């Protein structure tokens, strides 16, 4: 970030906005905004409660399961659609619809199918993440340089070799891009799923805080969730940069 021709460190910006928040809070302008320091105090207190820890566990578990399912289904489906034209024709339209559809609208249907429990949240996470993974995997597979495949075949590669040693590796940059976007969507999925189910996990906490106007706790939880989401995206971005060099070098 730059201002007055100088670099402003990101920490400075954070401190600036925290201060602004504190001032607005202290001035008691808006009842929805308690002072930032109070929110921090609430945060410190909240993370020690059993309810919060259980909710966190449930969230991470649902996220991991849903994301795992999305990878397990999304990558093979993307590979299939990248390799078999019939599969692409059959499924392509649907995948494109789901990638941009407001999936939140489907969560009530999932609730009916899977009940008001963790399964619904796992399925929601999966549903949010899977489509972009399918789409990016397919794009990656389709753009694999055909002469790499011919090269491998000319040296005696089996079908399995072609997939394991050429196709998946050559498409890895796109697959990882899909996974990163998938993770960002999955974070939304895990939050939205819990908010709509609202009787377990963070959903239950949010429900509790907002119904009782516990704004300090409410903001503490929100900040924490935002931080989790950013951390998740950063981690994947870091992994992605590690393989980026050959995305550029493929020609």
């Amino acid at each position, binding site marked *: 970030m730059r201002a007055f021709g100088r670099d402003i460190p990101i920490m400075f910006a954070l401190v600036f906005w925290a201060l602004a928040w504190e001032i607005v809070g202290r001035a008691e302008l808006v009842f929805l905004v308690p002072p930032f320091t109070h929110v921090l105090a609430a945060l410190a207190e909240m993370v020690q409660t059993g309810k919060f820890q259980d909710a966190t566990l449930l969230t991470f578990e649902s996220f991991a399961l849903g994301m795992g399912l999305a990878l397990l289904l999304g990558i093979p489906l993307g590979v299939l659609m990248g390799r078999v034209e019939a599969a692409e024709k059959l499924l392509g339209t649907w995948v494109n619809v789901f990638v941009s559809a407001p999936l939140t609208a489907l969560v009530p249907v999932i609730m009916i199918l899977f009940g008001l429990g963790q399964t619904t949240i796992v399925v929601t996470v999966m549903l949010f993440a899977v489509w972009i993974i399918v789409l990016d995997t397919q794009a990656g597979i389709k753009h694999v340089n055909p002469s790499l495949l011919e090269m491998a075949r000319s040296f005696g590669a089996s079908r399995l070799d072609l997939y394991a040693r*050429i196709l998946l590796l050559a498409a890895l940059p796109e697959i990882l891009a899909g996974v990163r976007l998938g993770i960002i969507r999955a974070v939304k999925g895990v939050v939205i799923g819990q908010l709509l189910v609202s009787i377990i996990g963070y959903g239950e906490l949010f429900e509790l805080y907002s119904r009782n106007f516990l704004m300090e706790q409410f903001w503490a939880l929100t900040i924490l969730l935002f931080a989790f989401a950013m951390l998740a995206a950063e981690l994947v971005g870091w992994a992605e940069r590690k393989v980026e060099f050959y995305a550029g*070098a*493929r020609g």
Partner: protein
Amino acid sequence: MKTSGTTDPVETATKPDGIVQARGISKTYDGGIQALEGIDLGFPKGELTTLLGPSGCGKTTLLKIIAGLLEPSAGTIIVNGRAVTGPGPERAFVFQDFALMPWASVLRNVAFGLELRGVPRHERHVIARSHIAKVGLAGFEERYPHELSGGMRQRVGLARALAVDAEVLLMDEPFSAVDEQTRRKFQEDLLHLIQSENKTFIFVTHSIEEAVYVSDQVVLLTPRPGAVSRVIRTGLDHGGSPEELRRNKRYLDMVEEIWQMLRGYLV
């Protein structure tokens, strides 16, 4: 055959003999484009044969059929007396666009053919290193393709093909993506390779000079559908110095003669 001085190219009948033989090869692609028609050719062992012809006449198609990467619509390829049904260890391909795996080091790329054949890691690395040195890339083993120039990348492709120790090397315009100086150096290196390796080379190029310079035998193909127009034995002494060869009258005459034959195909 290695004589020079006479000006007439020695033309032989296109009788299929040699380590690689094409017998009645035709190829029609899905969609109805006929690329090749009734190719009968022999590729003598230990020699370099160049396929030369107008763009789109089916040179790449023929090379890929010989490699076993494409199936002919009619005819058979015989290698060492056996009909080809797919790729085999006695043939190796050098690709025009190098076909290097960008995620793998030079060492791993060169060893890839051996890796696919299940050669243990240590052994294949020893073999790969020696071929990397042979093509002049010693010290670049741990580099990645994007860190190399076009010429160096093609050397990696060549080392990979040499590493599997195939008897027949198939090269599709291997030098077309490198600059002129590098290309000349490559041509000279290729001649050394033919002298030292006793392998059979089948080579595709667009350059008449290059074809005559490196070949024992030049096959002229007609425009699509490609058929054998002429088979010319160059009869040049490739053992001498490059300067001598490039100024050799027979070499220059042959280039001119082939140009006269090919220009008839241009509109």
